[in-house]
């Protein structure tokens, strides 16, 4: 299976990612130097959570805006390796295609939680239940 050089999100998820970014970053008028998140940070977390929770993501329901270079998103191929090792990727889907699906699904969930609760339930995502 050929691996794509770029992956992304559907326009809807891309817009939701933008909204998440606004929510998670400090106010634009904040003059102090602060740490700012970028799209990759949320994208990778969405994929990681999908992997951890053994999600079975559906195929994208729209055309993806493949704006992220794979070499930048996953420079040391960590995500690729994990998916490959887990062998959870369907045969007909490339590994990065599968990662894209996990990101799409995760970001949509993040956005939904944000809409419902007014904030991301980070403790639910990150709390080590073991």
């Amino acid at each position, binding site marked *: 299976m050929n691996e794509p050089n770029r992956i992304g999100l559907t326009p809807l998820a891309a817009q939701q990612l933008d909204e998440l970014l606004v929510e*998670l*970053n*400090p106010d634009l008028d904040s003059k*102090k130097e*602060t*740490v*700012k*998140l970028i799209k990759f*940070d949320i994208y*990778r*977390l969405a*994929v*990681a*959570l999908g*992997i*951890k*929770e053994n999600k079975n993501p559906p195929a994208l329901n729209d055309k993806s805006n493949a704006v992220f270079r794979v070499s930048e998103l996953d420079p*040391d191929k*960590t*995500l690729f*390796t*994990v998916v490959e*090792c*887990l062998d959870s990727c369907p045969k007909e889907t490339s590994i990065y295609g599968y990662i894209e699906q996990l990101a799409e699904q995760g970001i949509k969930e993040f956005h939904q939680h944000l809409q419902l609760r007014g904030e991301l339930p*980070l*403790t639910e*995502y*990150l*709390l*080590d239940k*073991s």
Partner: protein
Amino acid sequence: MKLQELTIYNFMPYKGEQKIEFPQHETQNVMLLFGDNMRGKTSFLNSIRWGFYGLALGRHLREIPRANLVNSIAAANDDWSMSIMLKFTHENRQYELRRQIDKKNHVSVPKNDGDFNESIGLKIDNEVITGDLIVNEINQVTPAEISRFFLFDGELLQEYENLLVEQSEQGDKIKEHIEQALGVPALVNGRNEFTSLLKDARRIQTRDAKNSSDAKMYAEQQRVNESKQTTLEKDIKDLEIQQRDVQKQIDDIEDQLKNTEAVQKKKHTLDVLKRERETIETQLAYDADEQRELFQAAWKDVLFKGVQPLVNSLKNKRDSLLNATKAKAVLDSKITDLQKSLDDPICPTCTQNIPQNEMNVIEKKIIELKAEAELSHVDIDDVTAINSQIDKLAKIKSSNEGSRICELVTKQRKMQVSIIKIETELDDIEEEIRGFDTDQIMRQREKKDRLGNQLFKLESDIKDTKGLLSKLGETQAHISTLISKSTGSQGQSSTIRVNLYQDLEVLFKTGIDDLRDALREQVATYASNAFSELTTEKTYTGLEINKSYGLSIVDHTGQILKERSAGAEQIVALSLIDGLNKTARKTGPIVMDTPLGRLDPKHRSNVLKYLPKMADQVILLVHEGEIDPGRDLSNFAERIGARYQIERISATESQIVRSN
């Protein structure tokens, strides 16, 4: 003098008529009037003061305007009549003094003192005393000047501490009051009179000396000095006017600040809360930054935890493959050994041929072992592949970012709850102080501090100028002597007059000093006696008095105690009051408002034991924090002749009821 009865009508919080009978017994001479703060204890003290002298004093000894003396509820019902009647005995004569104010007929709502008519009536043994003589009669019994020592507001105790600071304006004012009560002004006025006469006489002497050739030069010097003296005197007068003005401004600001004390406290709380909120907000921002930083790497932490089951399973798989490899090696070795037996069927132990049936068993065993070894066969590439996967997955490292983020989220929640609480509190306080210009209050405080510095400078300038004037006086006296001795001036009437007034002035000055010293010594003796009974520290040897009647504690080494506690200040002040009271008059009641406020239980017990001995009648206006009716009364129960309680009717009305 002994108080018998007080009848109050519409005076301050006491609406309508209220009658209080004072104890007459020789030993049961204490009357207690209990009342919470703001209920009317000081008003009770003022009712007696106003009855005697037509004067009621507020803070900073300011006179309370008549309109404020009339009970506000009665005034709201247009009853502007207020009166005090005092019955008392003095030298076996019966006195009945009544003082009353009424609104003038043409005034609808009185505002100024002039809007009232004041009437005063006095009967002595039922004989009516006519108008002009009344004040004189009252002063015969209890002069207004000494009222400060028998109508005593404990809240003013602090003022007596100012006596320790010689030359302070407040201290001078109190010293003046003390000396007025002790009778010093008679001599002071005499001295001033002779100083004035001496000044005139010197002027005439100088004028005469101008015509004398040998005294001409002195006359010129004296003229210059006189001009300097006038200037210095004017400077002192101006400085004193400024000093009074600054002091008045300070007093006014203190009054304003006192009224806004609660607001100031709220404002302070507001500022503290705002700072607290700011600190929490800064911490929140800092934590949010840390949280985002952790967020950036959180995906690795999630992956690390997500792949752990896989890593464990891979490791197990690898271990079983390695175990299988080891097992196969063992089987292969066994097979090899058995095969050798088949190939060379001689027993290595007994060197006999192995029987066929045994050989069959070995053959069977080899087949079984080969089958088993076949099952344990491991492809080494599989192990390599697993190792490769484990190595790749091992590269995913975690620094527990997830747990740290969870901790930060919990902390953030708590801080947000704190902020909500603070903001609710801020809203409440802001609502409470709405309408008060808190910045203005702060500005007033700053202004008071500035005025305090100004006052200090003025006091120092006055002291310096008085010093210059005094030196100039000496120079003038010296030149005057030189003029007197000059041939032309000897025997002249102006010179004779100067010499006479000079001698008289010196005589009065010496007299004043002698009287002051004697009075101070007497006050110090009485005060020391009182102090020895009041203090709980028996190693103190007594009190030392300064020129302003300030008292210092002397310890067992004869050294003056530099630092005194608030309680010690109060004990010293009470001792001074006793000393002054006993020096100024021999008999009479003493009315004390809140005298025990700052005392610990032991000192309180000492004071309560001593107070009945301070005067023929002792009237104590106290709250239950000062004298606990259940505990402290046992100290002097046998001395209590009457007990009253001020009961609250409303915020502006109180009632005095007898409770024994």
